[in-house]
């Protein structure tokens, strides 16, 4: 998995003197404050159930986040508890007593899609500025305390949420809650810290987007796919708007959205719910609710009527590629069973060596070097289903696209086999059990779901719902949603003269 900060010759991720296995070619990804912003749009919009997209944090490539937490035999799953404080803060506790460690996360129900038009990048900019100190604790103190106790910390921003986390020894949980509760309302910002940090996010944009033609294409495709939804704006922001973001913009956004009744606390690890409840009451519980946070209603997409294409030509492109995104329901907007069917569809079409796209295009027809599919279900509004392909040398993007279209058409016309259905469901359901091995992953999954319109119960029953998906559900979902008029196709090429060749 490539990291954002790839030193291709290899640098071990520096944290472990007796530790992680060093591999040549492994990427380094540490010192990244906003660890999870994806190059294209949102952060966790990309990585939740099923989507095999990596997230970077602390020099680790945290693998694909599997959807489910509750395994095949649901009784075996972690006993997740949830409750709310009087001030409206929702709390989720995921006990895992194997290691004396806790993952403490606060998720705000605000993201890039909640920005005022013209202020793109503001949610993420504020996320960086949240490390700049409060009335009680000057800049750097929180991070110094986390470092002194051997903790890890970071933060991330997506279209629909912004999150902050620490991973520490269990005995330090209360201290983390005190600091995090303090910066929920106590942030102090001056131009002396705001302006250098604005340069940092501009360099972050260069690093993620400017230096990477493929990321530029994804950004352009989102802008073309979402005609009305704020999901068309990059989470990192458009450069010209980022350059104008000010201290007042950040403070205004903070005062409007950061409040206990607009947040979810997730604590996973070596703790019990009662203990977390008592600590949460003592810390976050003292913050008054904010009355004026309105409902999260964003402009919705019109019925799409035109197939769109986007072509990005860059002299650095040595390997052409094709991407396709379809506008599809998210878990929050889907009819009953539809998101689960799309999850299975993405798996059958494009996950693994025996998926339709890989088997058809890469192995049998020998047109592609790689091919895949993904579905991003965690979003408040209509979201994306994606296909991708990398052509072999001497294969045109047109030939590749024709073949991809044929694979999709076959699934729409003839459906999938019983064997494909079972294999995909087995894998998706097994991910639930694997997820139990990783408390941070469970915490992220619950946080992302609860800030995008899902309930704890819906997360817990995800595997059961996957189990009920039928072949006919999958075929119907393909027929309904993989309609070319709902799509944007992106071509990554070296120079525009290839366009003529492509269209010929």
């Amino acid at each position: 998995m490539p990291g954002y900060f790839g030193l291709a010759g290899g640098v071990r991720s520096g944290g472990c003197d007796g530790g992680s296995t060093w591999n040549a070619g492994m990427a380094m990804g540490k010192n990244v404050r906003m660890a999870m912003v994806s190059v294209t749009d949102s952060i966790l919009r990309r990585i939740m159930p099923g989507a095999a997209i990596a997230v970077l944090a602390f020099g680790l490539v945290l693998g694909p986040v599997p959807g489910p937490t509750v395994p095949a035999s649901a009784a075996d799953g972690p006993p997740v508890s949830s409750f709310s404080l009087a001030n409206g803060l929702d709390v989720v506790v995921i006990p895992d007593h194997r290691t004396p460690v806790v993952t403490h996360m606060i998720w705000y129900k605000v993201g890039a899609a909640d920005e005022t038009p013209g202020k793109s990048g503001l949610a993420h900019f504020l996320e960086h500025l949240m490390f700049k100190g409060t009335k009680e604790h000057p800049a750097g103190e929180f991070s110094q305390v986390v470092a002194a106790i051997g903790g890890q910390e970071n933060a991330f921003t997506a279209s629909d949420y912004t999150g902050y986390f620490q991973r520490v020894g269990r005995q330090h949980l209360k201290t983390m809650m005190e600091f995090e509760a303090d910066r929920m309302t106590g942030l102090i910002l001056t131009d002396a810290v705001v302006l250098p940090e604005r340069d940092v996010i501009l360099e972050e944009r260069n690093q993620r987007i400017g230096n990477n033609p493929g990321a530029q294409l994804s950004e352009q495709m989102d802008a073309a796919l979402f005609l009305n939804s704020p999901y068309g704006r990059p989470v990192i922001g458009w450069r010209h708007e980022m350059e104008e973001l000010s201290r007042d913009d950040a403070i205004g956004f903070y005062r409007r959205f950061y409040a206990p009744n607009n947040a979810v606390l997730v604590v996973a690890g070596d703790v019990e719910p009662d203990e977390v409840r008592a600590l949460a009451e003592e810390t976050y519980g003292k913050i008054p609710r904010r009355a004026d946070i309105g409902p999260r209603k964003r402009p919705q997409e019109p019925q799409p009527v035109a197939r769109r294409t986007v072509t990005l030509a860059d002299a650095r492109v040595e390997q052409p590629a094709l991407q396709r995104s379809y506008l599809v329901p998210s878990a929050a907007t889907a009819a009953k069973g539809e998101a689960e069917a799309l999850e299975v569809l993405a798996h059958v079409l494009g996950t693994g060596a025996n998926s339709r796209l890989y088997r058809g295009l890469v192995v049998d027809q020998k047109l592609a070097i790689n091919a895949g599919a993904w579905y991003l279900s965690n979003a408040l509004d209509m979201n994306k289903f994606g296909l991708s392909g990398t052509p072999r040398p001497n294969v045109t993007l047109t030939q590749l696209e024709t073949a991809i279209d044929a694979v999709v058409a076959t699934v729409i016309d003839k459906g999938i086999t019983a064997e494909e259905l079972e294999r995909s469901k087995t894998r998706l359901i097994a991910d639930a059990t694997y997820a139990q091995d990783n408390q941070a992953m469970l915490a992220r999954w619950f946080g992302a779901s609860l800030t995008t319109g899902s309930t704890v119960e819906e997360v817990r029953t995800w595997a059961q719902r996957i189990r009920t998906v039928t072949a006919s559900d999958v075929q119907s979902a393909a027929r309904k949603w993989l309609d070319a008029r709902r799509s944007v196709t992106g071509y990554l090429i070296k120079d525009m003269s290839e366009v003529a060749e492509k269209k010929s």
Partner: protein
Amino acid sequence: MSARRGFLALVGAGLLMLMPSLAHAVAIERIVSPSGIEAWLVREPAVPIIALNFSFAGGASQDAAEKAGTASLTTNMLDEGAGDLDSSAFHQRLERRAIEMSFSVGRDFTYGSLRTLNDNRDEATELLRLALNAPRFDAEPLERVRGQVLSMLRRASTDPNSLASRRWWATAFPGHPYGRESRGTLESVATIAADDLRDFTRRVFARDGLKIAIVGDIDAKAAGEMVDRVFGSLPAKGDLRPVPDVTMTGLGTRGVIDVDVPQAVVIFGAPGLARNDKDFMAGYIANHILGGGTFSSRLYNEVREKRGLAYGVSQSLVWFKHSAVVIGGTQVRADRTGDALSIIEQEVRRMGEAGPTAEELAKAKSYLKGSYILGLDTSTKIASQLIQIQNDNLGMDYMTRRDALIDAVTLDDVRRVSKRLFSQGLLVTVAGRPKGVTSVGQ
């Protein structure tokens, strides 16, 4: 042999309990399988899965120069068909039981990892046995996977990270396997044949360089049987090409690779410390203070926090069997690259001259002790750490000794090792259109 009849020996102290904070996290058992293969086991009944990690001595440095990428291509081919199963059948068997199997290659070692639900342990064991003992290397998957590697290498040919990094390693280790990229080159990968892959597995997949760690819901007897089924039929001895010890070169030189990108990638480094150097832990702490950690290092504060020149900057110790380096990197705005590099060079020099303060040392120690447990909270992380500890020859009690090793480091130790590491100048490579930086001596 029939593993089921075997008697499982618990060797020596057998069960080693760790210090209190780690005790209920990681209790390592050293087991020896019926056929005599050693493995480290951590029993964890709470989650019904098993993680098995292993490594063989011999990695990318076993490649001949003109066949660079052989080890890497071999590991990419191990799940592409084995025994009677062609690629498709092999993948179907994995997918039907949601078994995860992956292989990778480092400079000195070849790594493998298996993760399975406990219910599917038999099938997982059989598939891993086939992959290691009877890989097919059929023509169709070989050409397919070769195409994927070539595609990655084509992408890398204009990527500033890859360009700066490749130049750095090539300048540091000219003519030595460590100077080559493990994936190989467009030219070398094109020439690798199935017989080259077979030759690699014959020389490397052997019991003498094998390290194994198992974590999960499995007892010692079953773990020993699993080990024998997978590894018991491998040859007793490998046939490795000797790799010479080497010290990196190119200090004081600087190379600029022209790429039209808005941001310059800068890589910098110097000779490092062997893992068994008596000053290793002191050096590890010194590096942490200068360029490690998350938001705490001197480089982070000077380059990012105070000046906003970059999104990230960091530096690490990297050690191999036959050499070691300290290497760092950053991506900075093109028009301030010269400034950023001056600051980095100044901070490295300052650390070399004066070392850290007592307060910095105390904080670093506290961080390094406290954070270790965070790397041990999943089965896969634990298994991977146990492999590293074995390959570094740190001993089964390393986790219990580690705090004391850190505590024993004095300010004088860190000053001494800082002088050694950070007063030797730097080898620097830059990819981009940096202002104020030109090539020197490269």
